[in-house]
């Protein structure tokens, strides 16, 4: 027994109650006030767009020219647009699409980015050079013409396979996510390069850990902090990209009131009906901001080095 040389007892005093990793992360997440508030806001937004139509039963496309461009009132809490359509109903309906496009596109971008970045970071040499060449190629592509091309090529096939809305949804998510993975890939690759040389990774290698184990247990978890933050920013840009597509008539059909679409429709009336632009703008702003804060909170909560 090597008990003759015990470690200093300083760390033994005041042992905190032992928590599982998940409980510990949750405890740490709760310390991040903004993240918790943001979670409630995002939760409220999600609840509103999911359950809203059952509560607020005004149809989204009921045209009423006598009530056009009205400000908020009891009858139309968020006012009406130039066709007298109820903005609240439209935002509730459009939020479903905007939020799910944002989250799904982020998932696609993260998945592809992490995959390519990890492969490049682990392989190095020729494979790395090839993958980074591909990344640069994607970065240098003019995105709008490419979007046009992709959508003309695949819209009908996808519509036929998944129905009008489902097909467009898959297409929009794939196109937005597929053109946004490059920064993530570069980030992940850079993280991998620095982590690969760390002594704890070498120690795992010395213990006989295989490549998969090194990546899954040691490198990737330590690389995820900045990736999570990049992912939350991607949600924002995906929501905005979707509205660009809608504006060009390439995304969802013009009668589908996604947040971005409503915002674009409102731009010509900014001086006489500012509420029309303010409410969808606020919805995008709140969603994006709260997702960013949640990302911040997650990064801190999942990093045990940070004392909170």
């Amino acid at each position, binding site marked *: 027994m090597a*008990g003759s040389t015990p470690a200093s007892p300083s760390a033994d005093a005041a042992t905190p109650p032992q928590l599982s990793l998940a409980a510990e992360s949750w405890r740490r997440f709760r310390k991040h006030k903004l993240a918790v508030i943001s979670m409630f806001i995002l939760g409220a937004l999600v609840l509103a767009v999911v359950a809203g139509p059952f509560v607020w039963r005004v149809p989204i496309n009921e045209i009423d020219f006598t009530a056009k461009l009205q400000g908020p009132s009891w009858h139309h809490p968020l006012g009406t647009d130039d066709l007298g359509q109820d903005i609240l109903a439209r935002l509730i309906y459009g939020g479903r699409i905007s939020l799910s496009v944002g989250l799904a596109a982020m998932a696609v971008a993260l998945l592809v980015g992490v995959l390519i970045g990890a492969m490049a970071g682990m392989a190095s040499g020729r494979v790395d050079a090839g993958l980074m060449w591909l990344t640069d190629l994607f970065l240098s592509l003019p995105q709008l013409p490419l979007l046009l091309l992709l959508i003309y090529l695949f819209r009908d096939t996808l519509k036929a396979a998944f129905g009008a809305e489902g097909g467009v949804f898959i297409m929009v998510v794939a196109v937005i996510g597929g053109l946004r993975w490059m920064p993530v890939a570069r980030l992940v690759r850079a993280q991998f390069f620095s982590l690969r040389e760390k*002594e704890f990774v070498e120690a795992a290698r*010395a*213990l006989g*850990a295989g490549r998969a184990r090194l990546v899954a247990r040691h490198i990737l978890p330590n690389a995820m902090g900045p990736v999570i933050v990049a992912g939350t920013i991607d949600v924002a840009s995906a929501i905005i990209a979707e509205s660009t597509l809608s504006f060009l008539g390439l995304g969802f059909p013009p009668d589908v009131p996604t947040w971005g679409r409503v915002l674009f429709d409102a731009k010509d009336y900014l001086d006489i009906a500012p509420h029309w632009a303010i409410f969808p703008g606020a919805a995008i702003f709140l969603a994006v901001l709260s997702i960013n804060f949640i990302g911040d909170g997650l990064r801190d909560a999942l990093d045990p080095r940070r004392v909170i």
Partner: protein
Amino acid sequence: MNAPAPLLSVRGLKKYFPIKGGIFSREIDRVHAVDGVSFDIAEGETLGLVGESGCGKSTTGRCVMRLIEPSEGEIWFQNRNVTVLDGEELRAIRRDIQIIFQDPFASLNPRHTVAGIVGEALLIHRLAKTRRDVEDRVVELLETVGLQAGHLRRFPHEFSGGQRQRIGIARALAVKPKLIVCDEPVSALDVSVQAQVINLLEDLQEKFGLTYLFIAHDLSVVEHISNRVAVMYLGRIVEIARARDLYDNPRHPYTEALLSAVPIPDPSLKRTRIKLEGDVPNPINPPTGCHFHTRCPIAEPRCSETAPPLKQGADGHWVACHLRG
């Protein structure tokens, strides 16, 4: 060297790191990190490996367990040639050879608990069946290195440097290795903690019959723990001898200079310092002949022409010098 077959036998080990450049990533130069190193370690022995930073000691240690692929040379462990092993065999050899790292802050995964860090080896090598078994074994290991079961769920950042190094030692011990490469295990620690960790390593050696390759640049630490000491200069071993012998009677001029630089904790004692001129030459372009001839106080013309071989002198004292054979 010794009567029974040595546990580890390194022959003509070389490691060159290519320097790539140009548009086609051609090799334009190479760093001669380890340039023909040979030594043996007997079972239960501690071989100290000393030299200044950049002389290739850590590279040698990592080559021994194939964390770095050697460029040339052979490494025999228990009569198996480690250099040709592959896949499952290589994994198996890593149960026998383990490593303790220099920086206890970089060598533990910050996201894993102590239980996860120490228990990982058990999972990789399937040395424990159930989670309960893993935990029991980890607690046993922690107690062996002077930590407690209460530390199981803690993260590395909650520990002091010395405690972290103990976690690193427990991790290395988990697979019941025969040889442990200690890569400057105490250089990053406070002096008082250094002594604790050195004592722990000695206790463990006695208890488990471990063999150490102890890499350090602190000569007094090495003297304390080693049976024999090898001195490296610019990728080559210049002298190997029993620790006492080397310290009392250094033969190579580099060893002499190195030892004269060790401070004596007694101000009334004066020691003649041998001051070496210049810096360590660039390992990309090491000097011809004896690597040390550019700074050697006794160099002769032949020293710059041929490299002196490591020759055995009286009772196992090996020196690589034309003049001090």
